[in-house]
């Protein structure tokens, strides 16, 4: 169980004088749901983008799915899924066209694409909307679809950058069911969020303040260590001292 799929050691990203992510060192284990918390501007997205191969680190080391973030970015990309806070599906394509496109560019065979999209449309209950443009779907549905598309090629790790922003609580709950489902299939989930109730769903969480990881543990341990009743309190205690904000 303790096989790690992400390992970072003093991973740093500097933009000019500004240190967005400062000497991050952590490990994420296989099959884990790893929550990545922090106030706006704390450096979460920067850290995630380095791990996805979208951003070259300034210093430090990191491996993702066994590949080095400096040397093997393209290898990493074959083994991860990614869903950003920006909407990542093509709104002018239909539900099934989006599924087939992303499945296709990840190199799935025609028969597998067919099988997967059947399965996905069934699971998300989108049979009626299958041939509708994505732009006509409500936001919550789109986000669920975007997540399912991000894991359609069964990646080792999926990175989710504030996936449930602006989504209603019921749909958020359904979204987390999808996340659990993916974790059961052995996909490691690396997720950033602002919602403290979602933090409770994670196996382990790290809390970033001003580019530094201030705390990293299971939700239960964190609450105990900071003698708080909820994650919300833990977060407030840590984020109170933050100097950066937007």
């Amino acid at each position: 169980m303790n096989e790690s799929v992400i390992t970072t050691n003093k991973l740093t990203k500097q933009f000019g004088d500004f240190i967005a992510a400062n000497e991050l060192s952590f490990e994420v284990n296989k099959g884990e749901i790893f929550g990545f918390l922090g106030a706006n501007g704390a450096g979460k997205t920067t850290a995630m983008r380095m791990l996805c191969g979208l951003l070259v680190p300034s210093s430090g080391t990191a491996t993702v799915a066994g590949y080095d973030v400096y040397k093997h970015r393209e290898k990493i990309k074959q083994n991860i899924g990614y869903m950003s806070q920006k909407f990542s599906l093509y709104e002018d394509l239909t539900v099934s066209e989006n599924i087939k496109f992303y499945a296709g560019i990840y190199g799935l065979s025609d028969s597998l694409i067919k099988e997967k999209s059947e399965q996905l449309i069934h699971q998300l209950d989108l049979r009626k909307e299958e041939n509708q443009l994505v732009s006509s779907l409500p936001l919550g549905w789109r986000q669920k679809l975007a997540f399912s598309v991000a894991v359609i090629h069964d990646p080792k790790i999926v990175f989710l950058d504030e996936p449930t922003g602006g989504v209603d609580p019921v749909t958020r709950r359904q979204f987390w069911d999808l996340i659990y489902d993916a974790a059961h299939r052995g996909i490691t989930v690396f997720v950033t969020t602002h919602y403290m109730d979602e933090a409770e769903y994670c196996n382990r969480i790290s809390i970033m303040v001003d580019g530094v990881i201030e705390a990293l543990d299971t939700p239960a341990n964190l609450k105990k260590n900071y003698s708080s009743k909820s994650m919300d309190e833990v977060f407030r205690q840590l984020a109170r001292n933050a100097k950066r904000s937007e």
Partner: protein
Amino acid sequence: MRTIRFLLQKEFRQIFRNKTLLRAILFAPLMQLMLLPWAANYEVKNIALAVVDNDHSIESQRLISKIYSSGYFILKAFPADYSHAYNLIEEDKADIILEIPSHFERNLVRDGKQKLYIAANAINGTKALVGTNYLGGIIAEYNSTVRMVWLEPGKMNPQPTVEIVSSNWYNPLMNYKIFMVPGILVLLVTMVGSMMCAMNIVKEKEIGTIEQINVTPISKIHFILGKLIPFWILGMIVFTMGLILARVVYGIIPLGNILLVYTFLSVYLIAILGLGLLISTYSSTQQQAMSVSFFFIMIFNLLSGLFTPIESMPGWAQVIASLNPVTYFIEVMRMVVLKGSSFHNISHHLGVILIFALIFNAWAILNYRKTS
């Protein structure tokens, strides 16, 4: 190859689903090709002429009707004196004043000579110059008629005259449209190619889907080919439709081998799409891409030899024109379509455009980053 297939499928679906854009790509250029050549014409016509006729004789009437029948002038007014005529120029109602002095006929008959006065509003220099030239020509002709009729042939010393007989090759009727249509078609294809390609990629940046593409294993080359091929095909279609229109509406049938034009076009489109691609790598919003493309399009238009001959441009402008891919295609079009030139004649142009294609695309590929 499979990746390309999926990329092309996606791209064509998006293009054909966006009806407004599709109309802009396919039909707007044809509309322009239908309208512009009729208007983009150098012939100076409808020159407003004010005639101050102080003589009111048969001869002055004969001169005026000769001017009118030339078809280039509109007899705007017959003011009583020069100052009235000058007012017409000030009010922009007349372009040229012709003053016929009193006793025009008498002096002409008695002394055998008479002066006329022409004044032109030279704000529009071309109109003034061409107008006075026409007028001068008509008066000279009138002059020689007068000589023929009045002078007794025996008394007249036979004057040696040099008469010029010219024939206009390749465009015998000096039809301006025939000269303009191939050039305008080149411009339209250029605009469709570079702008549409740039805008398309930048749109993906704006929506954020490009980030999604960047975390997939799609290689740079595949992504770029996925963008280039659809617009290359569209460019070919637009050009073909334009050629058909040029034939139907303007009766322009290419004299040379049409395959030669298409060979050149296929390389040219790669160059122009490469430029669009390059612009997209430097822009992060559609607005930026639009402004930058517009900058290039304006230079392409005015420094391409489409409207004004490159040979008469100042040296620095000639240098820019020689770095302008549009220049080469317009030349090739005029050579092959109007003159019937062969491969040998355009091989230099093809070579230059090939270099453009390589530079633009290599630069764009280098500058396109999946990782920042």
